[in-house]
């Protein structure tokens, strides 16, 4: 019988691939063009309305940038504290002990229910009354850490709960104790689930850390204000601060995206749909 299959067209695939590649290249170029135009427009608007004093900026930029390490340090330290509190908080919220659970739920409710700015000010004034006179930076870290810890408690809790129940059942049916199951099976998977959320929270923290300037922590925003005020160029220095925050955010987002892609490689299933 005549062959059911025609001749196989080998060139076609390469042609299509090349076409798709050039299309996506064109798209990326146009996309970047759009950004460029918008950024240029923004810069033009700023130059027209704010009347940038480049000499002034050149003189004060190093001073303003001294705030960057403080911002990053405060953010890192706060997110670390927040993660610790969130792990404890999530354990508490999942506890069958009503008292532990009550404490954790109170913590979450209270710190999520009131403005961060107030918490910073309160903690600044309240800690010394409890006999704990910490310098401004640790105080700010505590305030940020407690606030974000409350939000992240819920993230962690839902991360733990997002681990399919089948995992717990499989571990238990192998004879593992509840504790071993939690530590060896649940937590590692939950951590993978919440990593993106931690990354996002860190990026948000970078900006919220600017609020601790009210208690005289010399971070980026504070430095910008100090540079701008006496010279009455606040708008310019704040603009610089905004740019620096933006660059930091983009840098960390980029870093985070890479990290997530790397993590995802192991997760991606070879054949979609097979279980």
């Amino acid at each position, binding site marked *: 019988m005549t062959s059911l299959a025609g001749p196989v067209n080998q060139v076609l695939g390469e042609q299509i691939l090349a076409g798709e590649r050039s299309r996506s290249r064109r798209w990326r170029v146009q996309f970047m063009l759009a950004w460029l135009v918008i950024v240029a427009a923004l810069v033009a608007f700023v130059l027209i309305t704010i009347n940038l004093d480049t000499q002034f900026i050149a003189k004060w930029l190093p001073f303003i940038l001294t705030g960057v390490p403080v911002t990053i340090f405060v953010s890192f330290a706060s997110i670390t504290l927040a993660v610790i509190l969130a792990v404890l908080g999530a354990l508490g919220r999942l506890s069958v002990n009503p008292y532990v659970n009550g404490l954790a739920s109170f913590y979450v409710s209270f710190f999520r229910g009131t403005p961060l700015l107030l918490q910073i*000010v309160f903690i*600044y*004034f*309240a800690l*010394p*009354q409890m*006999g704990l*006179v910490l310098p*401004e930076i640790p105080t700010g870290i505590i305030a940020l850490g407690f606030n974000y810890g409350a939000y992240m408690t819920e993230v962690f809790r839902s991360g733990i709960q997002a681990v399919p129940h089948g995992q717990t059942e499989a571990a238990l049916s192998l004879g593992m104790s509840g504790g071993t199951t939690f530590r060896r099976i649940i937590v590692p998977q939950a951590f993978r689930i919440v990593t993106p959320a931690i990354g996002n929270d860190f990026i948000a923290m970078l900006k919220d850390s600017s609020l601790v300037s*009210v*208690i*005289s922590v010399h971070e980026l925003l504070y430095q910008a*204000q100090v540079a*701008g*005020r*006496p*010279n*009455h160029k*606040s*708008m310019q220095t704040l603009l610089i601060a905004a740019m620096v925050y933006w660059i930091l955010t983009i840098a960390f987002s980029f870093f985070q995206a890479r990290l997530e892609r790397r993590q995802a490689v192991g997760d991606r299933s070879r054949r979609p749909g097979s279980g």
Partner: protein
Amino acid sequence: TGGATPAPSVAASAAATAPSSAPSAAPSVAPSIDPNSLLGKIVAAGKIRISTDPNYKPFSFQNPDGTYDGFDNATAVEAVKRLGTAVGKPIQIEWMTPSWDLITAGGWSGRWDISIGSMSVTIGRAKVVDFVDPYYYDSGAVAVPKDSTVQSLSELNGGKTFCVGAATTYEQWLTGTLEIVDPDKLPAPTDPQVTSLPTDNECVQAVQSGRKFDAIVANANGLADQVKDGLPIRVLSGPPIFTVSVAFALDKSGPDDKSLIEVLNGIVNDMHSDGTLTTLSNKYLQKDVTMKPGG
């Protein structure tokens, strides 16, 4: 200083309705006001937007019923009343309360017309705002915690910790960036460790809560007020650390404000000479701060 003027108690609101018995030497404004000037706009709107910082008792604060009160506000009410007389049209006041940093930074984008809120005249500020003639003279003072052994400014040299309100002249004095026209200012302590909180109220509160500062630098009258209220601080005796003129301020980058300044200069001078300012000062501060020290 001129404590000799009789002090009839006039409330801020009352001041607005009080008959201006004072001789009005204000230049009667020409009917030809440039409509594009700040004055023209204010007259056309029949309204002036005044920025004030009601966190600054006794100069500016709010009452529980929401009304604005204090030396600055009473002065503003009287000045605007006289402005209305001068232009032949009553002018309403709209109070604005942006944060103090935003006021002192200039570049108001037309958000408000004038600051009548205890702004000290400094050379730096004069680059971004235009000042009217001073309506009072302010002096800074240093306070220490009640239990402190410090008695004089010289003991605060060499790396002591200070608390000040952010974006104030006191912060500038400490950091060595204060440039004022008035010459007599004391040298700031050497190598100060400065903590700047939103206002000096927070400083006092910080001390009260147990935070340790070697000293607080703030407005002498404000500190006196706080001592009176029983807060745990003590004001160092001795001459003021500096004295500075305090004036209404207008945005340099805003519409042409020359005509308005001219009118306001007249009004402020009238209020000096007819004793209105002294009266208000005595009412709110229990002393007269409207005379230039040594002048």
